[in-house]
């Protein structure tokens, strides 16, 4: 199986696992889901990437991860403000 297909399958399995646990726990939280998705895609891209060449799909995924890191920063800022306001 191609590395690309493996990465897609692993990411899908991780997301389904997270959603499944959240549904079992009846705690569907978008922020937690986003953070767990970001962790999953980060690990998968690191495992799939090669030091000799970077396929185009991995370059796109890295851009997505960079955007996710910025969004994660916004979430952290909101949480800090929420804690300070209590």
């Amino acid at each position: 199986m191609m590395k690309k297909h493996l990465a897609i399958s692993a990411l899908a399995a991780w997301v389904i696992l997270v959603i499944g646990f959240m549904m079992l726990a009846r705690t569907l939280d978008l922020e937690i889901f986003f953070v767990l998705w970001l962790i999953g895609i980060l690990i998968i891209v690191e495992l799939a990437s090669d030091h000799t060449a970077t396929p185009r799909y991995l370059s796109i995924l890295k851009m997505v991860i960079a955007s996710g890191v910025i969004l994660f920063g916004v979430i952290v800022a909101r949480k800090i403000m929420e804690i300070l306001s209590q």
Partner: protein
Amino acid sequence: MRRLPALLASSALIITCLVLIAMQSGSPLLYSPRSDALANDHVNTAALPRVSEDRSAQVLPLIEDLLNSPGSLVLTIKANDYENVARELEEYRHLSRNLDSLVINLDMTESEIADFRKANSENLYILTELFNGTDRWEELKTLEIRYRESGDAQMLTSITYEGEFLRRKIQDLYRDYLDQEDVMVITGKKFNLDTSPYIQSERDFRDIVHQIEAGQEDRASTVVNGLFPHENRYQLTINLVDSKVSYADRVQVIGQILIPRYSGPESVDIFIDSQKVGGIPTADDGSFSYSRVVEQDTEGTHTVFAVYKGSVFSEIRTFVVEAGATSLILEPPEIAERYVGFRGTLRTDTAVVGNAPVEIISDGKRVTMVSTDTAGNFNIDAKILPGDHKVKALFQADSYPLSPSESVEYDITVLDSLSLIEREAGLFANPLHIGILVASISVSCIVALFYLRRRRPGFIPPSPVFHLPDSGLPVDSDNTERALIIPHTQEQENNIPAVLDVQVGSAHWRDPSHLFLTLRKAVSRHLSFLYPGSLTPRELCSLCKNLPFSTAVCRFARDYEHFVYGGQELSGDNRETIHAAYSAAMESLEGIDH
């Protein structure tokens, strides 16, 4: 091997994430009380009939046992076998707990099962009280014999009055037991069970009541009229103004004591349900009056009698406390920053209900409890988690002669503190918030940029290395290291044939690809190039730049690309042209070698 630590770290991270989710969800894992009421599909009415059929198979044996248990228990009580009564009562209690667990585990919402469970719970209470009452009744019979032998008139009278209280209580229990008949029998018939043991238990219960009534009447007539006629010199009489009262009504007892040589005010003790409620001074004519407001008196029959100096007893009077309806008014909740304010009033048709407990319910779960003040009002701020909730107030107290009631239900939305800030003052009104947001976004941007630009540490392949023809094979330490790093390089060099030439008429002279491979090997040998297999014709040309044979090699590369990559079939002239270029390049190389 390099990926093993990464895989281990990933596994540890995944497990940590799952554990964190599980911890956040609380316990139990599969059922969160907080989210229970939020689930829209919590009750699927379409599936209920089918599910009921499946569940009935599990509930049926238990219902049958619960229908039979009261009959056996009442019969054992009737036989005064108190050791077995205690054991059977414990078994009955255990069966009732099993029913409660089964109803919760199977999530049974059918009204019949809920009613049966409630009636069974009531029966358990009734039979427990019947056991306690009959046990005490037997003790009184023993004490009566002892005091009768010793001639203790005071204690005999006390026993008689306590017996009267027990008789009233057991009569009430019997009436309550009959009230459960409809639910128990209807449920039993619905499941095609034999309900005759339950009907028989009612007859046995009635026999117990008749036995106690007969025994109490005998005892009362003997004590009052037969044994102590001399006590008639003192006469203590009482009467009740109202024999039926409700909540907030006044129970008024009036009486008079006649003493042969009455010299002044005396004190008479009033007992309600065998509990002393106060000592009342008499007037000059020996009359007295006692009254109190009905508040925390349970629904049902209550007994009253008076005692003078512990030796003169009045007759026993009874009054009935009837249950009254209540209305609970809850004003719209006031949602503040951190709390939700609940205000309301509890009252009956005629009066307010003071000092009564009121529960605040959110999504079916109790949030807090508050007591009403003397005016029946309550006011409390409760902390409720952010989100959408359904809230109401509930009054339910067994110690009051009042029916349970609940207020109207309100849908409220509790905002989290950050949403409140955004709504009230705007997110960017506080410079601190702006600073936090800017700092966080800046840091995340730097991290994202670092992530995009970073290079992973690890093996970097060596760049192409070549040597001028007069320098020979690499002998310096750096190149030796590289040769060691790539063990197959030496093997590739060994595969280059010793004689690199293709003559006209030979087997491969018309094959341009073979000519190119041969020339590439020859050039690589001259340049001591380590990786010839990856070179294209154009790269071969660029490698030979500024070398004496570059013109010939580049000419071959140009002709080769032109004819081979041109997309047309090669003609004989094209092949000869390529071979001519090949020969010129090889001659240039051979000229250098020689």
